[in-house]
């Protein structure tokens, strides 16, 4: 596309009919108040905390619904809370804006958030400090809402960092276990690396366009060099890789499973990790001006989804499988974004939120039932014991596998189509579009396979563990059912009845796509899902000996997969350890030896000079006479001759 066209479309897409004065802040404020109350009241009465928090989330959801319905076609609400700070040429408002994209995100966040709150009441029922948990959880909602409601980059950044903090706190919720706390720290720090990139992007934008308001930025964009756009886009993408766990910064997400499972569901599957995708969608007008950056996004995303899918193949920890699956699915979303189909990315974000939240909650239910056993080899046959959980889990598995008419199919299908046609809008993608699409299909097969594998190992066969599993309480089952329902029909509804594409076309570029396909066609297009599911069913119910043999066949490969490509170890060996040693060396070597040494050395030299000159203090008259005489002669002659 021509540069000017792109710029024009960007300007068009950010040109809203804005309505001032809507009290958008209330959406975010409710969870904040809830968070405070949950802690304070929950401290007295532990059980009340969950209900307070859930109520706050639900109320917030209600508000969102209210604005969602009030939002006119192609319009937006704006709420300028106050001027946050301003100095020199930098002026930042605390600005909320509610447009179609935000609406979708808000609905997902508060809707699924409410469900997960509800679920947590049951899940955390026995925890001693659950008031703290709900406090954090509500705080997370608050941050996440700031993130999606933020009308400029900095408010977004506030939420961005806020969710990072909550994620840190929630991962390390059981902080007595130091490795959990370390996982939290790791998440925060890896996120910070991304944030650094994000910050740089903000600086670059401020410097070159003088605004960080999304709308104003959209209006002002254009005119700068492609290199600059690429640089900004890449910096933003670095931020996104941190938050959304893409290569090379994805390593924190599997570790983050240390947190309570509802947390994994809410933060590390449905909402927070998709913030990166949201960011790309928000800044799409910038990315479309940087074709190279989009290729990079695609490449990274593809690599991530493939690697994560491969690792997920061999994991035995049910949450780890889901975690890698999340990474892989996030890769899919970025693939869509990289292909220029931002609305598809959001589409997948939404459907993924449905089924992945459901899967995590299901796994949580299982874990809860098995008394915090997470190893799938210790499970099996749970389908009979906890039918609700099993049923919802299976539905979601089919959804993620991309089998029509489950939710995942529609978004995935769009992604692969978008990849195939990405060359139309981005000439750099021409050569790779097909290739990317092919690999993405392979990943889809893998996804179907490992998810089915996990469902089989958990619910089919006979129980291999030692505890006495039981079905979860109603507060936990209800959210599962709702989510499973959404995972079942959500995709179809958004594709046809509710038409997400149509809804988003005023804020995101939506390319005209062909007439909707028939049901049979869609079943046909679900062949990768069928392939994966079928293969897994075959291997893990009938030919149960084959997988083990397969692993034995190529030990290095399976070891490599089981050990997650040694990413952690490589980072540790190449970056963390050397850096720490370097720091230590800097302290001992540079700071203490060289700098302080030279300071003390100077002092010592002066001191030694004193000692040396003191030698003249012999106490002997003759020497004094001699010194004085000699010095006198020296000075006289010195000035006589010179």
């Amino acid at each position: 596309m021509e540069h000017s066209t792109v710029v024009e479309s960007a300007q068009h897409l950010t040109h809203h009919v804005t309505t001032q004065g809507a009290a958008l802040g209330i959406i975010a404020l409710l969870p904040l108040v809830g968070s405070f109350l949950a802690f304070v009241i929950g401290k007295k009465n532990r059980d009340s905390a969950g209900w307070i928090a859930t109520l706050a989330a639900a109320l917030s959801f209600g508000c969102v619904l209210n604005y969602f319905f009030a939002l006119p076609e192609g319009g937006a609400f704006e709420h300028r809370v106050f001027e946050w700070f301003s100095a020199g040429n930098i002026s930042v408002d605390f600005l909320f804006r509610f447009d179609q994209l935000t609406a979708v995100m808000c609905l997902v966040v508060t809707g699924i958030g409410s469900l997960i709150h509800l679920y947590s009441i049951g899940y955390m029922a026995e925890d001693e400090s659950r008031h703290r948990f709900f406090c954090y959880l509500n705080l997370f909602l608050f941050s996440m809402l700031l993130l999606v409601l933020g009308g400029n980059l900095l408010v977004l950044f506030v939420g961005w960092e806020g969710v990072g903090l909550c994620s840190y706190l929630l991962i390390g919720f059981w902080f007595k276990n130091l490795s959990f706390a370390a996982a939290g720290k790791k998440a925060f720090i890896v996120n910070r690396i991304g944030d650094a990139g994000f910050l740089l992007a903000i600086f670059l934008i401020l410097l070159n366009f003088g605004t960080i308001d999304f709308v104003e930025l959209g209006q002002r964009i254009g005119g700068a060099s492609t290199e600059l756009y690429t640089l900004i886009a890449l910096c933003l993408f670095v931020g996104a890789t941190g938050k959304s766990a893409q290569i090379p910064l994805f390593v924190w997400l599997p570790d983050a499973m240390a947190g309570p499972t509802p947390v994994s569901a809410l933060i590390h599957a449905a909402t927070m990790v998709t913030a990166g995708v949201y960011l790309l969608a928000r800044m799409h007008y910038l990315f479309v001006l940087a074709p190279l950056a989009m290729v990079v996004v695609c490449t990274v995303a593809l690599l991530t989804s493939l690697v994560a899918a491969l690792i997920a193949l061999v994991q035995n920890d049910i949450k780890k499988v889901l975690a890698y699956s999340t990474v892989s699915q996030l890769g899919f979303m970025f693939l869509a974004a990289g292909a220029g189909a931002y609305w598809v990315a959001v589409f997948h974000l939404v459907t993924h939120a449905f089924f992945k939240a459901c899967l995590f909650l299901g796994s949580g239910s299982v874990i809860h039932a098995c008394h915090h056993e997470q190893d799938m080899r210790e499970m099996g046959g749970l389908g009979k014991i906890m039918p609700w959980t099993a049923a919802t889990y299976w539905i979601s598995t089919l959804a993620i596998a991309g089998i029509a008419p489950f939710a995942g199919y529609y978004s995935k299908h769009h992604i692969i189509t978008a990849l195939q046609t990405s060359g139309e809008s981005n000439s750099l993608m021409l050569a790779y579009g097909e290739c990317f699409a092919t690999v993405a299909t392979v990943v889809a097969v893998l996804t179907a396979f490992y998810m089915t594998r996990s469902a089989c190992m958990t619910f089919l066969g006979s129980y291999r563990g030692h505890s006495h599993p039981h079905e979860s309480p109603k507060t936990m089952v209800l959210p599962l059912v709702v989510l499973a329902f959404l995972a079942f029909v959500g995709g179809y509804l958004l594709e046809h009845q509710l038409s997400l594409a149509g809804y988003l076309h005023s804020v995101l570029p939506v390319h005209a796509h062909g007439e909707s396909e028939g049901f049979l066609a869609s079943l046909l297009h679900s062949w990768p899902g069928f392939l994966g599911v079928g293969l897994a069913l075959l291997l893990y119910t009938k030919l149960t000996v084959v997988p083990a043999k397969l692993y034995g066949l190529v030990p290095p490969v399976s070891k490599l997969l089981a050990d997650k490509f040694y990413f952690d170890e490589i980072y540790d060996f190449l970056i963390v350890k050397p850096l720490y040693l370097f720091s230590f060396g800097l302290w001992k070597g540079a700071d203490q030896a060289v700098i302080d040494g030279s300071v003390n050395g100077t002092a010592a030299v002066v001191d030694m000079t004193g000692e040396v000159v003191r030698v003249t203090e012999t106490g002997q008259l003759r020497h004094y006479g001699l010194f004085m005489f000699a010095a006198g002669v020296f000075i006289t002659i010195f000035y006589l001759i010179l």
Partner: protein
Amino acid sequence: MVSVNHYLILSLLMFSIGVTGFVIRKNAIVVFMCVELMLNAVNIAFVAFARMHGNLDGEIAVFMVMVVAAAEAAVGLAIIIALFRNAKSVDTDDAAELRL
């Protein structure tokens, strides 16, 4: 002819002898005598200059130096005696309690 220079050189020679003696001798009394040598050397110069300029300021100076020398003799010898009383020696090398 004997010029002022001759006297001056004599004076300087004597002064140098005094300085050298001051530096190399250890016996306090001899050191004292070396100081006297130096003073007398200056006296020679003064008198020669007085003659050269034809006024008596130089000779008055010499007179005053003699007074000073006398006073120095009194004080110096008293100090030497005091030192001898406390240290049982007039060797300046031994008088090195105060050092470093």
